[in-house]
């Protein structure tokens, strides 16, 4: 016999209560583990995504940079514009390989089957620049040229959703029909959801002559991004957003969502800790006489404390194992749930189940037990044998 088997037998004596306490711990650990694994996966995916972007710097009209950044990522309309002279000024900066103008516009379309109203995002682009900027673009059908009219390329996801194929004709903007000449092969990023038309055509159709919303910049040397963006910031109308900034912004947004979740978890953990302490105090009180008996047969206060501690850690560690397993099994469910809550989520799997994280969750559950067991253990170790034995009788 040892302290461990004694603890196990004691806990089995009150199966129901033990089970409930274990479940309480398990739930807390599940939430904790899921959040941490989501967090590390999220950061990893986000980094991957930004690194694969061909665009290093974006110039947008002066305004709120955070809003701009999130609009660029989501595809939204920036209600301010840059001019052709801004583009010239940018192009003249030393170290820039390519600066291409874009006009982003949103229009409302109707889903043909459901009649639902859906927002569409159209980019007016210069096709050759874009091909250089995004060398991974492949198209089914063909690209348009910059001078063509009534032509459109659509992203893969969008085409699938709206049932477009090469040759489809659709209406976009005020009373204007476009023919789909090309469908992008899946890029895995936001381009999958966009419409692309020649820039000059876009400026005409949407009545934004000579206006652009964004200048996308590719630099010659990635190390010079900071220097180039510094030069660009000197142009009065321009707000500069580097991709690292965008990532930072998203990280910040995700960060605030995360700190909220962390708070919730901290509260959940504290509540569950008090639940554990309460259960322990209850069972320790019920067993006062038993502890008295143990002292009378040679147990020291330390022995009693150790017994309570072992039982507590037993409970929290079991909870830790169950909670971690549940989190691993349920990770895809949780991922869906959290993806819906985050301001921006990368396409890859958000959950990253590293062995370190599993180890952390288990160690954490042990530490939780040590903390929770402290007071009940201290309390029961302090009883004099007399108090203890009398305690139950009177």
């Amino acid at each position, binding site marked *: *016999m*040892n*302290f461990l088997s*004694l603890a196990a*037998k*004691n806990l*089995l*004596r009150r199966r129901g209560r033990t089970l409930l306490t274990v479940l309480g711990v398990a739930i807390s650990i599940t939430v904790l583990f899921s959040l941490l694994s989501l967090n590390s996966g999220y950061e990893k995916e986000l980094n991957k995504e930004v690194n694969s972007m061909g665009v290093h710097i974006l110039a947008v009209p002066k305004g709120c940079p955070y809003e701009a950044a999130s609009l660029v990522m989501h595809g939204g309309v920036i209600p301010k514009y840059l001019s052709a002279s801004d583009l010239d000024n940018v192009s003249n900066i030393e170290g820039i390989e390519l600066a291409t103008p874009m006009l982003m516009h949103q229009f409302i379309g109707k889903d043909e089957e459901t009649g639902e109203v859906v927002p569409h995002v159209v980019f007016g682009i210069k096709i050759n620049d874009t091909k250089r900027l995004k060398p991974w673009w492949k198209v089914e059908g063909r690209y348009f040229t910059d001078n063509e009219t009534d032509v459109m390329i659509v992203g893969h996801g969008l085409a699938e959703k709206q049932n477009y194929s090469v040759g489809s004709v659709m209406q976009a903007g005020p009373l204007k029909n476009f023919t789909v000449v090309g469908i992008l092969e899946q890029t895995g990023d936001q381009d999958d959801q966009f419409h692309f038309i020649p820039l000059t055509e876009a400026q005409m159709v949407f009545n934004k002559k000579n206006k652009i919303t964004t200048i996308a910049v590719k630099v010659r040397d990635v190390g010079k991004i900071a220097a180039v963006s510094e030069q660009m910031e000197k142009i009065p109308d321009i707000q500069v957003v580097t991709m690292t900034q965008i990532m930072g912004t998203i990280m910040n947004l995700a960060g605030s969502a995360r700190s909220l979740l962390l708070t919730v978890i901290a509260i959940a953990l504290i509540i569950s800790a008090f639940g554990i302490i309460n259960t322990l105090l209850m069972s320790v009180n019920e067993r006062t*006489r*038993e502890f*008295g*008996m*143990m*002292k*009378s*047969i*040679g*147990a*020291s*206060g330390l*022995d009693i404390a150790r017994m309570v501690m072992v039982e507590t850690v037993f409970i929290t560690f079991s909870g830790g194992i169950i909670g971690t397993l549940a989190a691993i099994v349920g990770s895809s469910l949780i991922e869906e749930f959290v993806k819906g809550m985050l301001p921006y989520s990368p396409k890859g799997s958000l959950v990253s189940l590293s062995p370190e994280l599993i180890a952390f969750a288990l160690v954490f559950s042990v530490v939780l037990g040590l903390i929770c067991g402290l007071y009940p253990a201290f309390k029961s170790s302090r009883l*004099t*044998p*007399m108090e203890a*034995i009398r305690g139950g*009788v009177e």
Partner: protein
Amino acid sequence: MKSIIVANGLTKVYRRGREEIHALKNVDFRANEGEFVSIIGPSGSGKTALLNIIGCLDTPTGGHLQLNGAEVSGLAERDLVKLRRENIGFVFQQFHLMPTLTARENIELPLLFSHKNRGRNKIDRVLQMVGLEERGDHLPGQLSGGEMQRVAIGRALINDPHILLADEPTGNLDSDTSLMIFDLFRELNRKGLTLIIVTHNKDLARRAEKMYTLRDGKIRVCEIFS
């Protein structure tokens, strides 16, 4: 003959709110090594208080106690633990067995705290000594009252104490079973164990070598039988 327990002028005062209860009033008590001593007295006369002080489970308010020639009064709980562990076996009226442990495991329990490993043999010997060879793997719930008390006695013996203290060990048992338990005590005594037994039952108490009668926190009589 050598004195193993010497108590002089023991007093014990319990406080219950503002009320003071004098459970022991200047009690002198003495037991020789290998002696079988019984303590009788009406309920509330201080028997349990006295036994607990002798067993170092409780500290006296005043007076002195020597065990094995060494002064005990004034020792810290840390030292008292060792003293109890090495010298004293305790038996209670309510047995106080762990319901989740078998008879064998209950008897083994003190070894967990004394960090001794006595092996199966020793436990078998103790089981045999208390007449439970066949019952080692039973849980307390599957045993009769007499058998449970035997388990408790076995548990008190596992660390080879010099003194066995029993507080109304037959209080919950019928008279036949009580007699058998007393026979067991006699047998242990013959093997050299010092026994202090508190009881209500005068007939049983007379089976000891020496009988103290407590009343109102004072020793009234000390009879010696041969």
